[in-house]
C-alpha cells in the first residue's frame, strides 16, 4: 500500500512538472496519477528488484558520458569525408531476464556508442547492429549489463 502511494506520488509529481500547478487541473492530475500507478503495478510488479541508489547514480553518470561519446562518435563519422565504418551484426547472449529488465538494457544499449539492438531470436539471444564490428563489442556490452544488473540489485548471485 505504502509502495503504491509512493509510486502514485511520483507520477503526480511528474504530472505537475509537465503541466504546472493549477487548481482547476488537480482532479485530472490525481486521476492520471492513480491510473498510471495501477498500470505500473501491472507492468512492473514491486519486489522483483532491490535497486541500489549509489550504483544507479554511478550507472546514470556513466550512461550520460557514454551517450555524449555516442553522439560525438556518430557526428565524427557523419562529417568525416572518408565515412569510416564497418557496419555489421553481432549476436549477444544477455544475462538479464526477459521482460522489463532486458528491455531497459536494450534501451540503454541503443544509446551507447555504435550499438543498436535489432531483434531477439528464439533462444533469447540479441542481434545487435554495430557501426564498427569488432570482437570487443560483446565483452563491453557484458560489462555494461553486469553493472546494470548490480544496480538493479535483483540477482546478487549472478550480477
Amino acid at each position: 500500500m505504502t509502495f503504491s502511494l509512493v509510486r502514485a506520488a511520483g507520477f503526480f509529481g511528474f504530472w505537475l512538472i509537465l503541466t504546472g500547478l493549477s487548481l482547476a487541473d488537480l482532479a485530472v492530475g490525481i486521476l492520471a496519477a492513480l491510473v498510471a500507478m495501477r498500470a505500473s503495478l501491472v507492468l512492473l510488479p514491486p519486489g522483483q528488484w532491490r535497486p541500489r541508489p549509489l550504483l544507479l547514480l554511478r550507472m546514470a553518470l556513466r550512461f550520460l558520458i557514454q551517450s555524449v561519446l555516442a553522439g560525438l562518435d556518430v557526428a565524427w563519422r557523419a562529417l568525416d569525408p572518408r565515412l569510416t565504418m564497418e557496419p555489421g551484426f553481432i549476436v549477444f547472449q544477455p544475462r538479464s531476464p526477459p521482460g522489463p529488465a532486458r528491455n531497459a538494457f536494450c534501451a540503454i544499449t541503443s544509446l551507447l556508442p555504435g550499438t543498436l539492438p535489432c531483434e531477439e531470436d528464439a533462444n533469447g539471444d540479441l542481434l545487435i547492429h554495430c557501426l564498427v564490428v569488432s570482437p570487443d563489442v560483446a565483452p563491453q556490452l557484458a560489462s555494461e549489463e553486469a553493472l546494470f544488473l548490480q544496480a538493479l540489485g535483483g540477482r546478487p548471485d549472478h550480477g
Partner: protein
Amino acid sequence: MTLALDLLTIVGVSAGCFFFVAGTVGLLRFPDALTRMHALTKADNLGLGLIVLGLLPQAAGLGHALKLVAIWLLAQVSAAVASQLIAGAVLRQRSAIWP
C-alpha cells in the same frame, strides 16, 4: 553573471544545433537504414541534451527547468525504443525480400 549564463545558453544551443546538423548529415550520407538509425538517435539525443542544458539558465523557475529536463528524458526514451522497433522492422522486411 547574466552575461556568463547567456554565454552558456549561446554555446549550449549552438553546440546542440551542430549535433542536429551532424545527425542529419549522417541520415543523408550513411549507407543503409540501420546505420542511419545510429546517426539519428545518438547525435540528436546529444543535440537535444545540449540545447536543454543551454536553455536551463533561461528557465523562469525550477518548474520550467524540470520540465525541460523531462522533455529531454522523454525524447531519449522514445528514441531508444523507436530505433529498436524500426531496426527490427527493417530486418523483417529484408528477410521477406531476401529470405
